[in-house]
């Protein structure tokens, strides 16, 4: 209240009261954010361990009437991973490169399509809708065709993953590029900014969160595409090993493929999230503030 009266009678120094206001706002934000962050990390880790312990104690076997050869124990899976380390490592790299390669190519094509479409307001929307139809193509139908086109090597799986991921990126990025508040467009228009300047300085920056979200979804889609692609025709990779070992009844190795695929998917998801945090820190900060 003292501040108010001072302000009314004379021109009070603006910066001191502003400074305090901002400091208070800042410290409140950082405190609550860091507290939430640590809880967010430890809770899932705790649940993960609990899950593993219950599994090791055969609780799930009792619940679902499963035998050990149907669902191997975590310890058996760990041992299988350990004794087949070299093979699994090589196959992980193989499948991982299919997945990442396909994701990057598919996402790049999708992003390019979204950017071109964003410059053509009327035709663009139709084109993106058409591209979105790709999402409806079932991978089971796609895989044999791609194997037929590109052979049984890496190329056919990259093609499968590319097709599976490009629509998600195109739709998401297009939406991001077009969702600009009118006042911002008026501002750019007022400064006589051309369409390319509006794209580079405004639209693309605003679309970045949507682009990263699509990338994260695509990493998860990519691992499905790569593994299912290998089920059909392949002589290497986690998907190949998985289907091969199940046929042989070698469940611990089959399960190690599943575990590694899951870890690969999660690791890449968090890698993208990490890149996102550096690429668009303003967005992460905003989200923290909102939550």
């Amino acid at each position, binding site marked *: 209240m003292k501040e108010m009266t001072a*302000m009314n*009678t004379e021109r009070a120094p603006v910066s001191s009261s*502003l400074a305090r206001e901002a400091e208070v706002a800042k410290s409140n934000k950082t405190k609550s954010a860091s507290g939430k962050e640590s809880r967010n990390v430890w809770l899932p880790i705790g649940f993960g361990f609990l899950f593993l312990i219950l599994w090791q104690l055969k609780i799930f076997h009792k619940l679902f009437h499963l035998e050990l050869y149907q669902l191997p124990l975590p310890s058996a899976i760990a041992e299988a991973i350990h004794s087949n380390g070299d093979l699994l490592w090589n196959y992980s790299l193989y499948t991982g490169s299919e997945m990442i390669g396909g994701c990057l190519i598919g996402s790049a094509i999708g992003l390019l399509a979204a950017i071109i479409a964003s410059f053509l307001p009327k035709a663009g929307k139709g084109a993106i809708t058409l591209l979105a139809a790709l999402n409806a193509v079932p991978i089971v139908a796609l895989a044999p065709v791609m194997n037929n086109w590109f052979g049984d090597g890496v190329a056919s799986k990259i093609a499968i993953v590319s097709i599976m991921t490009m629509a998600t990126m195109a739709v998401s990025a297009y939406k991001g590029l077009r969702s600009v*508040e009118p*006042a911002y467009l*008026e501002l750019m228009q*007022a400064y*006589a900014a051309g369409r390319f300047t509006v794209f580079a300085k405004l639209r693309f920056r605003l679309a970045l969160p949507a682009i990263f979200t699509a990338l994260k979804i695509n990493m998860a889609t990519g691992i499905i595409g790569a593994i299912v692609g290998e089920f059909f025709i392949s002589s290497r990779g986690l998907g190949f090993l998985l289907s091969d070992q199940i046929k042989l009844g070698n469940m611990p190795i089959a399960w190690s493929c599943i575990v590694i695929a899951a870890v690969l998917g999660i690791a890449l998801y968090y890698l993208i999230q990490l890149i996102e945090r550096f690429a668009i820190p303003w967005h992460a900060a905003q989200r923290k503030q909102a939550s």
Partner: protein
Amino acid sequence: MSLGREKEKEIRIDDVSMVFGRKGREVTALSSVSFDIYRSEFVSLLGPSGCGKSTLLRLLADLLQPTSGRITIGEEVPREVRLKRKYGIVFQSPTLFEWRTVKDNIELPMEVLGLKKSEYSAISNRLIDMVGLTKFKDHYPWQLSGGMQQRVAIARALSLDPPILLMDEPFSALDEFTKEKLQLDLLDIQKQTNKTIVFVTHSIPEAVFLSDRVVIMSAHPGRVHSILEMEREEGSYEQIRNSGRFHEMTAKVRECFQLSKQQLHA
């Protein structure tokens, strides 16, 4: 004018009408509006919602084009004025870019114009000092209060040193105390820079406090009801606000405001 200022016409609004919507469903936002704005004058457009005051501002800014009538700014049409970046604009929301610091936000118009960083860094530093954000130049918008964000928007609008400043209810989303501070600072800035300011507001005291002239508009369709000359006084905020003259003028404007509404319902 009582200020003894040289009356040089900067903006001429001549029989301007604006109709939105398609045939059969037209809405007349502005109906034959005519008046002039002088150089270095502070003019407020005051009126209820639907009176077309924001529409008129957008016509001046060439963000909209009138259905009929003519606007001349200096010797040019609004489009030329916009392309030559001869006005700055401030909206109700600060419209800051979240990924840019205070300094980078202020530099946006200069960047869009294609100036070099070395050329405009000094300009933006001076503007940051002018709006009292020296300590915050590397902060991001989300780290600032609403009033500080609007200060950044004002500095950005001044960055190309345009002769005209267009403001669309810039303070209406702010709390009363912040609003007072910013009103005072805006008057200070006008004194320092001699800008012609067109200020849209729905607050009578704000219009009276800030303006050389208040254009009172009525709604449905948007028209100019009357134009009142204000007598600006020197003194502190409180002195002005408590003066008899301020109350007199506020009452006068309020009376016109009521009249314009009665006309509507009659």
